[in-house]
């Protein structure tokens, strides 16, 4: 079992002929993901790693029955790409692109939420269901099937945790990078609800960072709705206020969004908080007796 994507996912790649899109399409295909179509306006008829290219998402969906999209187009075209995917009826849209304007995302996320469409990202590594489907850029060689659900605002920090889990022989149901932007399509609670409902997920790893209050909201949610053991980590304890730490959303502003607040909220919710990333896999191993 898994959440959001699996071996039945019929994936479409928007921006497939671009450098990033083509590169990661190769990796997704190699991983065994069913990549059924790509879209680049004006390039219909071409193929990338054997995947046929269409001019529009609507054409691609009509021809291939795609049911999810992953987006690698440049930031200034991303809102349009997401809305095109939504308009074509795709229920899952994963947006890797970093640097999408916040006001674009305000419109896009509100519209998609109202239509019941799941958007993951932007500015995220995507998601992977080990052994079934890789949608985005999470390395396929650092995961394996197993009982742990992983959700994170980070990229490489998540890879580290996945790698450490896998090294210990602990696999994952699905790993979801929700992205480091201030306005995200999918929040921690959306993923936590799915992991809680997924019978194959036995425990959950949640990796937060400074900025915003989504970790606090997630902690409340976990306290009330999640019965599975949860291991957490918050990055940015040493980050100064008012400075953007790489991710557009990783900023302490007006005295809120600090790692201390978030860690305290995690602890109050009964989450097993790791002091440093190396501890995460060890705590998981202890909890699930692996």
């Amino acid at each position, binding site marked *: 079992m898994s959440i959001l994507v699996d071996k039945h996912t019929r994936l479409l790649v928007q921006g497939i002929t671009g450098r990033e899109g083509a590169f990661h399409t190769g990796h997704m295909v190699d991983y065994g993901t069913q990549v059924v179509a790509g879209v680049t306006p004006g390039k219909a008829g071409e193929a990338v790693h054997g995947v046929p290219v269409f001019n529009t998402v609507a054409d691609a969906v009509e021809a291939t029955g795609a049911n999810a999209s992953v987006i690698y187009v440049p930031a200034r075209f991303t809102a349009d790409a997401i809305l095109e995917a939504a308009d074509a009826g795709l229920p899952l849209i994963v947006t890797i692109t970093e640097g999408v304007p*916040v006001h674009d995302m305000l419109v896009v996320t509100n519209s998609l939420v109202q239509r019941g469409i799941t958007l993951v990202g932007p500015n995220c590594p995507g998601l992977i269901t080990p052994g079934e489907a890789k949608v985005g850029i999470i390395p396929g060689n650092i995961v394996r099937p197993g009982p742990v659900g992983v959700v994170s605002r980070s990229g490489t920090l998540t890879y580290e945790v996945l790698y450490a889990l896998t090294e210990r022989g602990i696999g994952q149901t699905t790993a979801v990078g929700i992205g480091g932007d201030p306005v995200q399509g999918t929040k921690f609670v959306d993923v936590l609800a799915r992991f809680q409902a997924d019978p194959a997920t036995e425990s959950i790893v949640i990796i937060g960072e400074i900025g915003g209050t989504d970790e606090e909201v997630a902690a409340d949610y976990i306290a009330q709705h999640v019965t599975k053991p949860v291991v957490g980590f918050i990055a940015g304890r040493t980050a100064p206020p008012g400075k953007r730490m790489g991710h557009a959303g*990783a900023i302490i502003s007006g005295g809120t969004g600090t790692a201390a607040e978030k860690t305290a909220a995690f602890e109050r919710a009964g989450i097993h908080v790791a002091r440093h990333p190396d501890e995460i896999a060890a705590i998981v191993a202890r909890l699930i007796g692996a």
Partner: protein
Amino acid sequence: MNIHEYQAKRLFGRFGIPVPAGEVATTPAEARAVAERIGGRVVVKAQVLTGGRGKAGGVKLADGPEAVEARAREILGMDIKGHTVHQVLVDPAVAIASEIYLAAVLDRGQRRTTIMTSRQGGVDIEEVAATDPSAIKRVTIDPLVGLQPFHGRRLAYGIGLGGAQAGQFGRIVAQLYQAYQSLDATLAEINPLVVLADGTLMALDGKVNLDDSALFRQPELEALRDPGEETEAERMAREAGLNYVDLDGSIGCLVNGAGLAMATMDVTQLCGGSPANFLDIGGGAQADKVETAMRIILRDPRVKSVLVNIFGGITRGDEVARGILAALGNIDTDVPFVVRIVGTNAAEARAILAGADMRTAPTLYEAAQMAVAAAAGR
């Protein structure tokens, strides 16, 4: 990106919000000339991208050109919370009946914009929120529908305004939201919005945070960036496309990925050290980027050791290791490096780096301990 008060007010004025007819000056003589043009009593205000300048003596009233020049001389060059004052704003002084707070701010959690107002203007809204939360009135704007006149009315009547004043307040709310939207801002604040003696409203101070991700479509705003507010290292990093933030510790950090970079700083502190910087080199090996990153770190004389923490994912660890070695070949330094590479081909990477006489560690925690120890010995 943050901009100065005078820039914010100039932008607000363009959207119809009443602002004082002041001008910015970089020398005492310029300040005097502005004051002569304006006439009457003026206020001389330090332009720095930090709060608390009033308490620090960066805002002074002055009557007459002589006094203005003297006050400007005092303020220019002043250090306010680590920011040097390079410019002062000379505004006409106005008679203030009362002060209002008004701001449009991104609400990340709700994915909406909140407009907040309070009759307790002139102080930090966080302070009001802590001491008298009921004094703050809020409306939430649906980005799909936009601001409506009723939002302005709810706020105006909510803080006890009425009549023509409520009408003017509603227009200013609409103008502020328009500015916030048009400028791709994440914060547009007027504090204080003052009630003048005749009952009309005027924005006496302004603050705008701009969305860096939207600057590509706001070329005019990009030009407002104050180079004096950036350290040399931050400028170099920005131009090289690196995410870099200056800190004041002694352990340089070079990491791929923002979350991992923060975690690396945190572990450094956990091990008793203190990070000298946040630095995310981004994805891929890119030897030239690694080299620039190293030069930026090493130009800080406080740096006593460097902790390199790389996760090899789709990019192979051995490639990253070679990139680091190539970069180090071009840099002359005796600062000790501790390198920790994990993930794809990490073993090969460690072998390559060991051959180059670099300390390596299998875990981040151990690497941080080694970097802290290396720094302590210097």
